[in-house]
């Protein structure tokens, strides 16, 4: 990752629209994410937040608009292309490989760095062995970062939800992404777990200089964690700015914070 101040933003979303069978999910959305910032997407359910993440790593194809990632323009992303360019992703309802151990899940996340051929793997030739050893080391390193070492050999489907969420972020981090997309990383966690994951996210941002776009409903944590907040409502951008500005924005309070989260806004 370049250490110098790069004038280019890490990610730009330009006039992106998406609809499902005629129902608009995202309408003409434009915003940008600076390098090394944590950008939070907030908004009520159905506001198009997850759909936007799915566009960013190629699961959905937008109807119009474009994505600019590190200066390159994309009409659409392809999932493999997104992964190769370093866009990592955590899903809303854990999308782990339930029949595999925690360690194997994390190593699977390293696929884009794999160079050994099938024949080399079948005969355990030097390149395959070396790659396997490096992948294991890297995976253990990441598991340590998330305090998951003791679960390395455990089948991931048998772990509690909160631990699975951590495994999922670990899997995304293993491949050393340049941009990390997290869909409700704190959902379904208790207060202590939320603090822990929030601290890990903050560390990934400061220590690994990782640009992070996350969706989160816990406004208290969002306002503390994020450098930049984008508020969506019915697929449109309602507000865009630093957390302090968002907190005081009358439109946001009316549309989003006002009803359900009045106590936080007040």
């Amino acid at each position, binding site marked *: 990752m370049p250490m110098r101040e790069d004038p280019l933003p890490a990610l730009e979303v330009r006039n992106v629209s998406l609809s499902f069978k005629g129902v608009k999910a995202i309408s003409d959305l434009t915003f940008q994410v600076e390098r090394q910032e944590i950008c939070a997407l907030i908004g009520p359910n159905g506001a198009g937040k997850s759909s936007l993440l799915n566009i960013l790593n190629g699961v959905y194809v937008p109807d119009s608009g474009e994505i600019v990632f590190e200066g390159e323009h994309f009409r659409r992303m392809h999932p493999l292309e997104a992964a190769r360019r370093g866009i990592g992703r955590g899903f*809303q309802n854990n999308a782990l490989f339930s029949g595999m151990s925690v360690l194997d899940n994390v190593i699977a996340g390293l696929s884009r760095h794999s160079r050994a051929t099938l024949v080399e793997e079948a005969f355990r030739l030097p390149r395959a062995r070396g790659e396997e050893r490096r992948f294991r080391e890297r995976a253990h390193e990441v598991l340590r970062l998330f305090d998951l070492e003791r679960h390395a050999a455990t089948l991931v489907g048998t772990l509690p939800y909160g631990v699975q969420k951590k495994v999922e972020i670990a899997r995304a981090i293993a491949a050393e992404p340049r941009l990390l997309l997290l869909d409700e990383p704190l959902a379904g966690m208790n207060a202590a777990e939320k603090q822990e994951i929030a601290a890990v996210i903050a560390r990934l941002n400061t220590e690994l200089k990782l640009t992070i776009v996350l969706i989160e409903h816990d406004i208290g944590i969002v306002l503390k964690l994020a450098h930049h907040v984008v508020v969506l409502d019915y697929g449109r951008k309602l507000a865009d700015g630093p957390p302090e500005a968002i907190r005081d924005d009358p439109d946001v309070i009316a549309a989003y914070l006002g009803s359900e989260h009045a106590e936080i806004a007040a």
Partner: protein
Amino acid sequence: MSEIDVRAAAEPLDSIGLKAVAGAAAAALVLAAPFLASEYWINAIIVPFLILSLAGLGLNLLTGYAGQISLGAGAFMMVGAYATFSLQLRVPDLPLPLALVVAGIVAGAVGLAFGIPSTRIKGFYLIVSTLAAQFFFEWLFLKFPWFYNGNSSATISLSRGLSFFGLDLNHPHGRYYLTLGIVTLLTLLSFNLVRSQTGRNWMAIRDMDTAAAVIGVPIVRAKLQAFAVSSFILGIAGALWAFAYLGSASVQSFGLTRSYQILFIIIIGGLGTIRGAYLGAAFVSLLPLALDWLFQYVFSGRVDAGLLQNIQKAIFGILIVWFLIKEPEGLSRLLGLRRANGGRRSLFPSSLKEN
């Protein structure tokens, strides 16, 4: 980490010595088997059991590991058998082991071609596509006499029999060691493969394909690799079935029934395990014997043979249904050979539940 490592890590160190002794004893027993068992057992039970295990292993890589359901196992075995026949007939200088490898590659290429639809469709629709392979090759190998060298009975057999670089293998022991050697080698290679990144890619696709794509698993390549490797192994198994077990074969030897049999082997044995293929093959090889024995002693031969065969099929069918409902992980799990709290394998894993 593979299940083997998991189990090894959980075990006390002193049991490893015991394991080595047990392994050595098992290996000695396997090597000495021809001298311990009767010719009938070797020819009619042990050799076909080994070949069915190999075929099960091949299909398990595709269906159990990569999650792609196939009813074309018989077709890919057929391609391997007919390719071996053609090579032995038309390229007489090519030694049998190399002919088997080339035949495996031919079957692998055919498998890859029939795997292409898997990059766009899955589940039931993919079954139809693999079923097409089954019917296509049954037709192809009957339609053109070139494939069976114009033989009046439309069967294939090796005129020079089996040999291994000059060593004559045309006796029960020879067939046994040839089969054992090939099965052992391919099992080891498969074992390496499923523990490597390719194996992890396959399992990732099986467990959740959208997530696999998003984290950078090359879905299309990995699926096609699974089809190719699976068909390579099935092709060699088919050649062994034709020439080391049957002696002479026809398209009927690899009909749809064979495809079902191989699929049942891995369902019964355990999807997504190497040993599952062996357990399932042992089960389908021994069940008819056990039923024969049972009916002979219980009804002292008063049930006629035709009825007996139908009863066998019915019992087999009931067992399949029972396995699908009660124990999707098969014998492997029942015998406690799988980790206790394993994730459930299912033929139709749920797709990504993410909006």
